[in-house]
């Protein structure tokens, strides 16, 4: 166990960079995934729009009721009635909507004449639309009342309209469970795709650095001269690597679950865990190969950044595979990361697991294991050649 223990002592010394890598990546990952998740979550709340109302009409019950209703959608701002100042206020976004009620508005409205409310808004303002809607709702409803009951009491008109427009019909869609599941799958898909990048970057930074220490020429010679068989030595190193991978992966799995907006452990998530583990083996084999091939720590760090980013970009960890060109995807299919992302995307879209879709997922995992085996074989050949060429 001496090699196993020393592996972790050496790793501990290099752990700072690995932890920093992990924390930064996990923060970025979570921010991005949570932002994307919240963008499309179907929630709505009224946001009041800073509005200046210039009433040139005489005070009337109609205008009072109108302004009372409008207050639900707008925050009234007091600004000097100077055109220059008003324009500045719009320019600097102190107000987003200026509504002018012209002289004779009440009279024209009650007479059924055409009315012209004057509005000034910030160009292309989305907020202005909610004020427009409120204005139209109120005036259209008032028009209906007056048309059908010309003698309606203007003191009460405001209340009637408030009552009518305030009436809400509660509609319940019985899809909460389905929404949660979809949301969880969406989050997990984003999270685990990004995790692929973290796995490659952190494993190369961690595993390769330790391997580099163990495979330095002189250290190797000392090990060969010691009464420790290569087999036992390698088994301890492999076990240590696997232990590191499992621990690191576990941290990310727990972090993913803790930060997930929907706490749901279903078969999809379990498959994503399994896929992440399989991909970790492929990333581990890459890290191992780098660790025994590269001679300097700086080169390891450069490779960690370069390889993780390039694999992430061409495999669809950052940009969905649907948006990538055929040539890029063709190139990416020669990397395990492509199959990892593809497996994740497939898992995320499955609602009912059956032999067909599970077979597809296992197929993708098998390809990743194939990559891992091929890379490890190359690493063993390199290792053997290095041993023969060592002196």
């Amino acid at each position: 166990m001496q090699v196993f223990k020393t592996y972790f002592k050496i790793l501990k010394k290099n752990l700072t960079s690995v932890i920093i890598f992990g924390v930064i990546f996990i923060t970025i990952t979570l921010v991005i995934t949570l932002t994307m998740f919240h963008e499309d979550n179907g929630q709505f709340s009224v946001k009041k729009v800073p509005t200046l109302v210039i009433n040139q009409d005489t005070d009337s019950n109609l205008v009072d009721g109108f302004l009372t209703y409008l207050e639900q959608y707008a925050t009234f701002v007091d600004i000097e009635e100077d055109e220059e100042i008003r324009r500045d206020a719009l320019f600097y976004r102190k107000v987003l909507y200026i509504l002018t009620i012209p002289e004779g508005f009440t009279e024209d409205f009650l007479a059924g004449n055409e009315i012209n409310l004057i509005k000034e808004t910030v160009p292309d303002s989305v907020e202005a639309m909610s004020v427009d809607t409120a204005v139209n709702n109120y005036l259209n409803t008032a028009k209906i009342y007056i048309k059908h009951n010309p003698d309606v009491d203007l003191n009460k008109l405001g209340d009637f309209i408030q009552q009518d427009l305030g009436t809400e019909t509660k509609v319940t869609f019985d899809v909460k469970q389905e929404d949660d599941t979809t949301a969880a799958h969406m989050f997990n898909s984003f999270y685990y795709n990004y995790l692929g990048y973290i796995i490659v970057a952190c494993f190369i930074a961690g595993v390769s650095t330790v391997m580099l220490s163990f495979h330095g020429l002189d250290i190797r010679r000392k090990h060969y001269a010691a009464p420790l068989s290569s087999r036992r030595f390698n088994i301890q190193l492999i076990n240590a690597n696997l232990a590191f991978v499992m621990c690191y992966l576990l941290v990310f799995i727990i972090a993913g679950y803790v930060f997930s907006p929907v706490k749901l452990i279903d078969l999809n998530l379990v498959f994503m865990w399994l896929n992440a583990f399989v991909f970790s083996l492929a990333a581990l084999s890459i890290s191992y190969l780098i660790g025994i091939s590269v001679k300097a720590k700086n080169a390891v760090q450069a490779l960690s950044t370069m390889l993780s980013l390039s694999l992430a970009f061409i495999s669809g960890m950052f940009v969905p595979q649907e948006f990538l060109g055929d040539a890029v995807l063709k190139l990416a299919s020669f990397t395990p990361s492509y199959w990892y992302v593809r497996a994740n995307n497939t898992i995320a879209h499955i609602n009912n697991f059956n032999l067909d879709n599970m077979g597809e997922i296992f197929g993708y995992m098998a390809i990743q294991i194939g990559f891992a085996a091929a890379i490890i074989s190359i690493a063993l050949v390199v290792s053997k050649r290095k041993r023969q060429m060592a002196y």
Partner: protein
Amino acid sequence: MIVKVEGLVKRYDKLVALDYLDLEVKEGEIFGLLGPNGSGKTTAINCILSLLKYDKGTIEVFDKPMGPDEYKLKKDIGLIMQNVAVFDELTVYENISYFCSLYIKDKKEVKRLTEEAIEFVSLDDYKKFYPKKLSGGLLRRLNIACGIVHKPKLIILDEPTVAVDPQSRNKILEGIKKLNEDGATIIYTSHYMEEVEQICSKIAIIDKGKVIAQGTKDELKSMISVGEKITIEAYQVNDLQLNTIKNLPNIYSVEYRENQLEIKTGRGNNNLVTILEYMAEQKISFGRVITELPTLNDVFLEITGKELRD
């Protein structure tokens, strides 16, 4: 016999690194393997330790055939290499303890031996230091501690003093002597003849993969014709006088350069007296007189026709 090498041949493509090399190292010896760079010293060591495959020959360690899987034999061998082989990420204590644990299973024993090794190389004050914080000399001592911590019966030191300051070098050499006194057999490779002469009880001079001479330092020196080297600070010596000195009895060679008269004589008494008497007779004024016994370099020079440092 601790190590017995017979007819060892190692080729790197067309280059013959070891050419039917024979060595015998007996228990309790400090066996010096002396030769210029590229003479095959390290290759021989690597073959002895089975770190390297060889083409022909046999190697026995502790009277048993040595091979890559002979872990019982490896258990009693300590290796100290020219380059410092330690982990930068481990402290002095952790490094020594780790290399000890490759040989010893018992944790308490590992701890005890680690403490002893630290004391032996006088690194007590640096236990918690990382190698990068150590000076070159201290680093060499750490390297030695890692190689001897498990108390091996055979210690192989491959040029352990390269690029080491004189003070640290002396400490290292003293340490090697102490290890030998404590019962370890030592194989010491070097191209520094002074070191080999200083500590080795038996020396093999190796060149182009062959042992060209072997024995104690006195035995080696007795193999050559030069018995004494006399250097005299002399003024205005003419060619005739030089020729006469050359023809004096038991004179091997004479060279005169920049008022330095270098004379090599054969074995025998009164060589110096004869020369000085002649110089007095010829009224040749002279200053300092230095006489030296032949060195291993002279041995190497006479056998191979080139300097050891070439």
